[in-house]
Structures are given as C-alpha cells and as structure tokens.
C-alpha cells in the first residue's frame, strides 16, 4: 500500500518508461547522472535512508483504517442503493380506502368484488385488516379467536358485518352492477339477516349475481335467500325459487316477512322515483313466492 511512494522506480517510471533507465539499487541515480558524476570524479551517492519500521507500520495502519472506513461506507451505500431499506413485506391495503371494481361486466368477477368490498367494509368498521377478517370467516372457532384477539363483542361484529355488506352494495351500485330496486332489496335483507346468514352472503356472493339479471329483483332476492343454504348456484334462475328444503330450514322464522317489510318500508320513494310498475309487481311476486312457496 505504501510501497508506491517508497519505490523510486514507481515514482519516476511511468507505464511506458523502461525501468532500465535507472541504476540498480535504491540510490535513485539515473544513467545520465552517473555519467556526469563519473566525469566529475565524485563518489557514488548513498542509498536513501529506509523509513523507520514503526513509521512504515503506522502508515500502513492508517491506510488500512482509511480503507476499512471507505469499504464499510461503500458497502452500506451499495446496499441502501440496491433497496435495502425497502426490502420488507408490502404494507396491507387500508380497508377504508375506496375500492375500484375490476371488470364489473363479468358476473363472477362482480361476485368476488362484492365479497371483497364487504370484507373491506367489515375490516374498516372494526379497525383491522381485510386479511384478518378473511381468516376469521371460515368457522365459529376462527371467528371466536378473531373476536378475542381484537376484544370485540357480538354486537360490534354484527354491526360491522351489516356495515360491510352495505358498503359492498354501495360499491356494486357505483360500479353499475346493480341499481334501483336491487339495491333496496339487498339493503333490506342486510338489515334483517342474522349474523351467520350475513357471513354466508359474503362467502357466497356469487349467488347474488350468478347466471341472472342482477337488476331482476325476483332473481336477486332468490339469490340472497339461496345463499343462506351456502350452496352457490342453488338459487337457480328467475322463476325457480332456488330455496331447497334444507335451505328453507336455515331461514329463520319470519325472515321473509322481515325482508318484505324492510323492502316495503323503502319501496314507495324508490319506486316513485326510479322503477316501472311491473318491476314492483315482480318484486312483490318474488317475495310472495319465496316466503310462501
């Protein structure tokens, strides 16, 4: 490291210069100087003094210290520049942020978006992540563990589920997937369904949209009721109630009447503003056929 400054051949000689231009030994005397000295009859010069070993070692030590500092700084700099400070798990999306529905024309995609919007809404209401809510959905044990972890009461979960589904309905409406009476009918259902059925509705959101005209209220309500059985596709198409005997058993007593009442509470203004008469008739018939099969 310090050799460069101690070695006269390195100081005087460039890359292209012949080292033989210098005399042997460490005197630093060139051929030209030697000729002149011999001509003058002067004795040869003494080799330059060797630097004291301690100084040389100290210089080497200082050079190692500087090199170490530079190496450490450069390494850390390279790692930061390569993204060392950002290499961590991606932050979970804030569930309260608005969701843009992708491909709302695709019914399967819409069902999925509806479920995700609902989960976002629940998570936002409870102040947890969407992913935690998803992991809490599957069964009573996971739901119970989630409630204990987050110190939540049944009422808070109930309220959050309804808020989540209402947000999903809003998002679906904003995306143009459902409108008018469908929105009203769904809201009515969300208001009265028990918690287990609300979760079924999120998990099986596809039955709301699957294979039917989502603005056909009869089909929609059938879908909602069909979802209570937990079997997507059970809802069938308009004209088929889709309510199997097993599903019928899952519908709490008076639920049909509650949905009907909830819908009727909201119907007049909606219908007056937006809906043609035959749709109202269709809705009432669908409800009648559902609650009184």
């Amino acid at each position, binding site marked *: 490291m310090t050799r460069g400054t101690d070695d006269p051949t390195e100081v005087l000689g460039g890359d292209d210069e012949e080292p033989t231009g210098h005399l042997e030994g460490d005197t630093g005397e060139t051929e030209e100087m030697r000729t002149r000295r011999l001509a003058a009859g002067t004795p040869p010069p003494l080799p330059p003094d060797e630097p004291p070993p301690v100084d040389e070692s100290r210089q080497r*030590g200082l050079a190692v210290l500087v090199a170490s500092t530079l190496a450490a700084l450069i390494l850390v700099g390279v790692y930061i520049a390569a993204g060392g400070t950002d290499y961590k798990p991606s*932050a979970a999306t804030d569930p309260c942020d608005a969701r843009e529905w992708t491909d709302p024309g695709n019914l399967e995609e819409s069902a999925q978006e509806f479920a995700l919007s609902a989960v976002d809404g629940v998570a936002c209401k409870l102040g947890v992540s969407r992913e935690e809510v998803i992991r809490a959905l599957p069964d009573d044990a996971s739901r119970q563990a989630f409630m204990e972890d987050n110190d939540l009461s049944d009422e808070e979960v109930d309220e959050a589920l309804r808020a989540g589904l209402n947000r999903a309905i809003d998002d679906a409406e904003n995306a143009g997937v459902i409108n008018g009476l469908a929105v009203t009918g769904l809201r009515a259902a969300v208001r009265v369904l028990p918690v287990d059925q609300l979760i079924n509705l999120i998990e099986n959101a596809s039955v709301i949209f699957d294979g039917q005209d989502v603005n056909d209220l009869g089909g929609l309500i059938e879908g909602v009721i069909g979802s209570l059985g937990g079997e997507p596709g059970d809802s069938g198409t308009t004209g088929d109630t889709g309510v199997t005997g097993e599903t019928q058993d899952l519908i709490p007593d008076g639920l049909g009447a509650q949905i009907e009442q909830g819908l009727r509470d909201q119907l007049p203004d909606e219908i007056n503003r937006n809906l043609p008469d035959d749709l109202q008739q269709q809705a009432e018939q669908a409800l009648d056929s559902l609650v009184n099969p």
Partner: protein
Amino acid sequence: MRLRTVALAGAVGLVLADSSIVVLALPEIFREFDTTIAGVSWVLIVFNLVLAVLAVPGARLARHFGPGRSAAIGLAVFAGGSLVCGLSTGLGPLLTGRGVQAAGGAVAVTAALELLGTTLGSDRKAVATWVGAGAVGAAIGPGLGGLLTELVSWQSIFLIQVPIAIIAGVPLREIIIEETREWKIPQIPKAVTDRPHLPANIALALVSAAIAATLFLIVLLLIEGWRLTPIAAAAVVTVLPIAALFGSRIGGSIESVRLRASSGAILLGGGLAALGLLPKAEIIWVIPPQILAGIGLSLVLSALTEAALSGRSAAAVHGGWTIAARHAGVVVGLLILTPIFTSQLENQREDALNTGTAIVLDAPIDPTDKIALAVRISEEVDSQGDRVPDVRPAFEPLPTDPEERSAYEDVLSALEDQLDRAATHAFSASFLLSALFALLALIPIGLTRRLEL
C-alpha cells in the same frame, strides 16, 4: 514439546469452537425439542455465561493447583459435559450439559495459556498461539457443526468432542506428575500490574456481542428464514472464517494496536450494518458483509486480546479476563438481540401473512377456492409455530389444469417472496444493533491512551 503445543492449542480450539459449533445445529434442536427461538438461544447463552463467569476463577485455580492438573481436570469435566449434551433428550439436560462443558472449558482454556508460556518459552508466542487457536476453533466451528448435523445428527457434535478432549489431555501426563510432586504458586513481579485492562476488555465485550450476533443471526436467517439446509448454510458462513484468516495476515503487518482494533471494529460494524440492509433474500448478498465482518473480527479480536494481556502478570488470569469479557459480551448480545428479532419475526410474519392473504384474494383463482386456500395457508402457518412458515404444503396438490396451476404457482411464488421479505426484515434491527455494538467499541479503543502497547 511440539505434541504438547498442538494438544494445548487443540484444547483451546475445541473449547472455544463450542461457542459457535452448535450454532448450525440450533434449528434442528429447536425443532426436535419443540421449543422457542428464545428457548434455543439458551443453548448458546448458558455456555457463554458460565464460561464468562468462571474464566477468571478458573485461571486462579490453575495458578493455585498447577496449570497441568487444572487443564487435565478441566478437559475431563468438559468431556463429561459433552457426553451429557450428546445424550440429552430434552432442553433441560442439554442446558445442564452445556453449563458443565463451559465450567470445564473455562479452567482448561485459561490453564492452557499458562502452559503454552512454559512450553513455548515465550509469552508473546504463547499469546499468539492461544488467540490463534481460539479464533480458528470459533471460525471452523459453525461449518463443522453444520456438517455433522446434516450428515449424522446434532448429538454427534457433542459426542465427537468426548474423545478429542481426552486425547488433548494425554500429552499433559508429565506436567501433571511434576506438579503432583512439587508445585509452588508463582509470585507476581512488582513491576507488572495485576489489574485487568479495562478499556480493552470492555471493547472486547462489545465486539464479541456483535460477533455473536453475526454467527447466530446469519445462521438463523439462512436456515429458518431462507430455508437453507445446514450444509448449505455452513458453506455460506464459511466465508467468515476464510475472511478472518485473510484479516490476520493484514493485522500481522500493523504494529499499532489502536489502528488495528479501530479498523477491525469499523469493518465489523460496516459488515453487520450491510446485513441489516439486505436488499434481497439471496445468498450472494450475505457474502460481502461476511468478508468485511470476518476481516474486521480478526483484526479487532487479536489487537484487543494483545492489549489486554500486554505488560500483565499471570497470563492465565488476564487471559481469563479476556475470555470473561468476550463471552459476557456474547451473552449480553444474545440476551438483548434475541427478544428483538423474535418479536420482529412475529410481527413481520403477521404482515407477510396479511399481504399473502391479499395476494390470494386478488389472484385469478376461482372465487370459491380462494377462501379455502387462504384458510389452508393460515392453518399451515399456525401449525408451524414461531418459525417462518413453509406455505408450499397449503398449495398441494396443485391443480392439473395448466392455466389454474400457473395461477396457483404465481400466488405461491408471490407469497414466498413476502415471507422472504418478512424473514429478512425481521433480522434487520438486530443486525443494525449489532453494528452499533461494534462501533461503540471504538469509544474505549479511541479514548484510552493506555491501549497502545
């Protein structure tokens, strides 16, 4: 004479290798005993704690009863402890065995320094051999331990030490006979000080805390975080001892203890800081920091040990102080860093899981399969306890339809990337704190005039 020197150096290397030889076996022990990362860290902590506490009393014992007899007894106790470790069926017996190993090791190592002085006829040579043997032992320890764990079992690491310790004691026969016949406690000359070199020992403790982190954390990161096999991890961490050997060559040409120690601490700190800033979970990124840390630890350890022993009487006692300082540093480092990175690991695991669930939810997979997959992942993660989970089983069997299969594989790959990020990031704070320990050593190194020889 030569045989005795080799045996003594071997004994020192054997005992000090034990501080690190078990590092690569920790994940295996962790799994077998179904303990926690904090629990398994005690396999290291107990050994280093007992070694730190008993190093100086052990050295005084060696002066009182004779280093030959003390070294032989120390090695016998060490062998007994190793046997207990190798046969242990639970964490409790293993920790007990580790404590016994360290107690015997403390006496054997400090007595060996005294014996090397008389065997080699030069204190300087004795110190160089003693420090070198310890460094070589500690450096090859992890690789050897990893190899034995993978090829045989973690128990074999301890069982193989039993005959080695006994063999190392055989060349001490003559000294033992001589000491039994007559032993006078050596008097301390008035010209030399008997007080330990405080700044050098404090710096040693700080640097050792950082070094412990280097070995312990890198190994856990590679095996538990990045799911490498012990042999693969051993190959990766072998860079450290190789760099340390290179560092000793550099150090040999520098007279100034302060410059050597400062350079070493800076390199060690820089290497550890880089490990705290890994930009990807790829092996190539842990190589340059290990090179710097390896060179650094070699420079700083040899310089500080020399400073601590210089001009002092009773080499064994002051050697004992350096052992005490170094291993106390290791214990403090592990006690401070283990809870930090285990809690970070838990938090990061949670974040990764959330992000992973988000990836599953946003994936082009059949909506009805998504929640089922998210639940399977969640169950897989729960079943694997504290460790960074292997989520692949949750995806098996993969669908046969090529398009669906590709979607699942994309999700798996994205999820594994998140887990790699989580595991790597979980170690960041601990590596950065270790770097701080190494740099803090610059204070006693730089501010103390007594450090220069």
